[in-house]
């Protein structure tokens, strides 16, 4: 299992990058390791650029704030790169050598210059059709963050997929109110309203995560 | 017991004497008392109070609002003992009925005010005084002013944790301790 890794997640407001970070951090902590998770500290508006950060380690994590030098970058929407919907330009800036990049896209989207930048760092790149998987298995693109998480766990040995699924259930069970920001709380309600029952939401999300996990697991083995 | 370099002794200390707390005088824990800035046994503090009262030319007790007004259960019992303490010590009683800055001025013959306590002390030539039943903040304000401008020896009998700016400070004063103090004063008187 990999320890001591800093992950930067970038996407569009409303896509659930904050929630994904929360779930991942929760899973890591419940697996007995340390984590600190925070969102990008900005005005939280739908479809505006959004970033969140997950630090995980087998020792206490003190560092906080934006992760400037990530080991792993997850891009939740192609527009982050193609339309510059990001405050971090280029999207891989600060990526450590031999780092890893996951992009939610059905097809390659990088320019030659960007590809060259990644190559120079010796980075590994994966394209994941996360939105497509979300539509297929959860019936909504709002589950993109779930498929991105599932995909991440299939690619990198960070934490058991079951622990992630438990964290998802905990996140949406309503037992403890989740607060990242006022806007996140509102979005939560809108996601829940898409499903008749919370249990159905959790079930759909679990399926989406599992399918994405299997997808990348296969991808990884074939590489 | 615990020796402090800074001594809280009678003034006048001058223009604006420092708060004893800022000079390193610590309030004692439960069961102890403060004597001129040092933490001592309660009994020793009581002995000093008795000695001071018995040798004073004009000892005066200043009962505050907490003991002048029958506002809570238990006040009357304490008040009776404070009265008895005055009788035993041969001390006069000058009350502090409230804390407002009096206009145009207080009558120093009959009362004391925490905002200008010195007027009462100077006017009546008080050389030893006891504060009892005064809210801690107002007692502290008055004790600092007294130490700044008079040579009066100040004693505080506090129901809470006591006062560094008094020369002798008792804490957690209850009926039992008051009675003990009276006994010690009676003893001192008769010896």
């Amino acid at each position, binding site marked *: 299992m990999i320890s001591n890794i800093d992950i930067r997640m970038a996407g569009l407001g409303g896509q659930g990058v904050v929630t994904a970070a929360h779930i991942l951090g929760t899973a890591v902590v419940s697996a007995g390791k340390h984590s600190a998770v925070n969102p990008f500290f900005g005005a939280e508006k739908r479809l505006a650029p959004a970033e969140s950060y997950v630090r995980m380690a087998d020792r206490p994590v003190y560092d906080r704030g934006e992760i400037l030098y990530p080991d792993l970058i997850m891009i939740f929407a192609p527009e982050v790169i193609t339309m510059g919907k990001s405050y971090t330009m280029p999207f891989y800036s600060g990526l450590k050598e031999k780092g890893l990049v996951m992009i939610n896209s059905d097809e390659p989207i990088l320019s030659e210059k960007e590809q060259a930048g990644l190559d120079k760092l010796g980075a590994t790149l994966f394209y994941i059709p996360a939105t497509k998987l979300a539509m297929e298995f959860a019936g909504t693109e709002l589950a993109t963050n779930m498929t991105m998480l599932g995909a991440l766990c299939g690619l990198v040995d960070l934490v058991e997929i079951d622990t992630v699924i438990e964290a998802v259930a905990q996140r949406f069970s309503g037992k403890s109110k989740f607060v990242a920001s006022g806007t996140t709380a509102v979005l939560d309600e809108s996601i829940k309203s898409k499903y008749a029952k919370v249990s159905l939401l959790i079930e759909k999300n679990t399926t989406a995560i599992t399918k994405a996990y299997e997808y990348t697991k296969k991808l990884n083995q074939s590489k | 017991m615990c020796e402090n370099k800074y001594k809280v002794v009678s003034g006048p200390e001058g223009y604006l004497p420092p708060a004893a707390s800022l000079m390193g005088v610590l309030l004692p824990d439960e069961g102890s008392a403060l004597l001129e800035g040092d933490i001592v046994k309660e009994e020793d503090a009581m002995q000093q109070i008795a000695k001071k009262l018995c040798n004073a030319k004009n000892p005066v007790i200043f*009962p505050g609002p907490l*003991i*002048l*007004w*029958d*506002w*809570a259960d238990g*006040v*009357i019992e304490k*008040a*009776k003992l*404070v*009265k008895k303490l005055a009788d035993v010590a041969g001390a006069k*009683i*000058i*009350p502090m*009925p*409230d804390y*407002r*800055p*009096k*206009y*145009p001025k207080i*009558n120093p013959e*009959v*009362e004391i005010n925490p905002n200008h306590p010195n007027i009462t002390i100077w006017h009546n030539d008080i050389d030893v005084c006891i504060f009892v039943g005064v809210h801690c903040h107002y007692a502290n304000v008055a004790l600092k002013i007294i130490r700044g401008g008079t040579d009066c020896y100040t004693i505080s009998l506090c129901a809470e944790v006591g006062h560094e700016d008094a020369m002798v400070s008792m804490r957690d004063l209850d009926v039992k301790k008051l009675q003990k103090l009276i006994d010690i004063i009676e003893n001192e008187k008769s010896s």
Partner: protein
Amino acid sequence: MSNRIITPVKEFEDLLPQEYKDLVADGPFFAEKGVDDLGTFKEIMEQHPHCAGCGEALGMRLVLAGLPTPQDTLIIGTPGCSFFGLAQTALNYSNTAFGNQNAVASGLKRMLQIRYPDKHKDVVVMVGDGGIADIGLDYTLHSWFRKEKITTIMLDNEVYGNTGGQESGMSKEGKVLNMAPTGKKFPKIPVFELAKTSGCCYVAKVTIASPKKIGKVIRRAILIAREIGPTYVQLFTPCPTNLKFAPDQTLKVAKEAEKDYYPFEEFISDDAAAYLAKVEQAKGDGKS
């Protein structure tokens, strides 16, 4: 009733200064007193440093005599002239910063309701025109919007008194004052009208030339604030020092204002009127 804090312990009763003995024996605590009884009982305000002929001091004196239960009344004020008399008054009085009185009173009233759910604790704001209409207007209005159960009393002397005679929002249009060297350019702020539209259940405008009306109005304002909602009394208390008239003319100035632009007005909401009818009938006094 909280008369225990004005009940002396027997051991020290004789030692109390005379004014306290008088307060206990002849004050308005153990026997209810009103404006009508002035001159025959010990008033709760003591000697104060207000100027000779001060309309505000007279206004406060009349208001304080009109309090239905002074032993359960707490007054919040602001810095300014009103501080001087109120600090000498035998009830809890506090000011904090300038203009925040209605916010402080909101917190205080709510906490007293938490701590003493079965008692009426009358929280009264008593401040000048500058405190209410200028620097504190937001806080005044918002306490009314929120329906805080407090009584707000403006001592309207149409000027900043304590700082030395500056124009206030309640000064008369055209009046030459400090900081209005060519005369005030706009009329008095219509706080009375604002009170009516901002949630007050009882609003009255009166001058010190009508002492008995003050007694009636204060009593009503406080009783209604206990049960129904916010109340506001605007009391004209002219300032001889800064409005520059002779101290013996204060009442004349008030009387003329009453005729000219400061007539007695009273507004009462329907629910407040119904409640008032009930209590005044129950009391059998219609005490006015």
